[in-house]
């Protein structure tokens, strides 16, 4: 379902932040701090994920004095499965890329000089 090619690096960072505490509800600014994304990038990603049923959203039930109620987010069961797969694939791809780079670098170092 959630293949590596489906998600942008920004979306993967949001999924990673939500995966950190899968059962906990998180609010937008907390996610922005974890991912380093601006609100104009973060919220369209959350909307797309919610449209696809990967993220559920709700308003805080109890109003807290001194601030408005928060909009909260967490992964759905499908979202958790997709996120886990996508993050694992992304890790695998990244480690492959790192290994490829180090092998190339190693070959370059070991290559004998042509007389």
């Amino acid at each position, binding site marked *: 379902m959630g293949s590596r090619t489906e998600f942008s690096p920004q979306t993967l960072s949001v999924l990673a932040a939500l995966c950190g505490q899968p059962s906990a509800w998180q609010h937008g600014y907390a996610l922005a701090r974890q991912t380093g994304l601006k609100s*104009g990038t973060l919220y369209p990603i959350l909307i797309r994920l919610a449209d696809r049923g990967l993220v559920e959203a709700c308003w805080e039930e109890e109003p807290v004095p001194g601030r408005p109620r928060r*909009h909260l987010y967490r992964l759905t069961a499908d979202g958790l499965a997709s996120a886990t797969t996508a993050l694992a694939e992304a890790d695998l791809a990244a480690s492959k890329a790192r290994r490829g780079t180090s092998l190339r670098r190693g070959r370059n170092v070991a290559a004998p000089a042509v007389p």
Partner: protein
Amino acid sequence: MSWLSQAAAAAGRIAAGLVPAARREWAEAVWAEAHEVPAGWPRLSWRAGGLALVAKEAQMVRRISIALLFAVAAGAAAWGAWPGSPVSHGAAVQGGIIITLTLLAGLPLLTRWVLGPPDSRAARWLRAGFYAAILAVMPAQAAIGLFVGTVPRGGIDRHTFDVFQGPGVPGSSSGGPDWGGEIGILLLTACYLAVVLALTARRTPVAPATLAIGAGTGAVLGIVMYAVAPLGLNVKYPDRPWLHGSAADTVGTLAWILLFGAPLVAGVIGGLRCYVPDDPGEAGVARAWQGFAAGLVSGGVGALFVTVLGSGSVALLVKSAWVRDWLYQGQHVTASAVYGRELFASQNVTAYPFLLVAFPVIGLVLGLTGAGIANVAASSRAGSGAAAADCAAGVGRGDVSPTLEN
């Protein structure tokens, strides 16, 4: 900074109202969260992101582009139609232009509030086409009105004018229809606009395919009708500069067939293609809706095609020499005869309002007839399908007739 932040907060709360209801909570979420963000530039930047979200979700770029396009097209149409020289019916013509443009700009907002916005590509294209047609007809009709209302100062043209129009003050110009005529045209425009907006709105049960079928068949009808009568409508003395002899008869017959056939076919296809409930009564009503809409759109689009193309041709005829040369290619026509033909064509344009009423009425009657045919065909198909299914089930159970056994 605080006033800037407060202004951004107020702008955001107002802007959130522009976002469709299903998405509004997301815009409100950004605003609620802004209280968590440290005051100063970070909070301002957060709210700017919220405004970007609102602009995206409210499709602001598309809305602003459409509004600008409409403003430019409406301005050009008004500039082309505005009576330039002093004319006796100038106030009526100016009033007609202002009211038409106000209707075009204001009625969609009212329809959106009551029936919702258009929610399919077919609906949006139909609206855009209708707007283009109205804005194209305005300057064309103004040019024709100015020409037909201007009394020549003397000579043979003056005599020709007297024959066609009756005596008038030499050199004077009416500039277009009087208030009575203008009100009639405005009522017709308002009716067309209301019907087009209603049929293309989200809460009206008309399928996008029905609109597309109606518009397609209507376009064919309109183009063939225009080929038969490119210079106004005159059944007794038709002016067909490019059709002669048997070709004129053939295309004329085809036009008559299409006048009744196009909405009928649209109604049948519209009735057969739509999704209907299982209940036969409700299915019949659903098909009737699609047939009604398909026929109405077919007739209306056909009438609009003839009106736009015909008015445009006549306006170009009285304005441009090359159109006259192209229309009457190879014919030796004297200057006075040219004036007579232009005047004749300009008078024949006055028959278009009749056509704009008659075609949709014919269309909706035949569209409903088509929906009835579709309903009968669908019912008989369902009946034979059920019979075949029963038969297949009977064979499967071993409940086979003796004939089959033998």
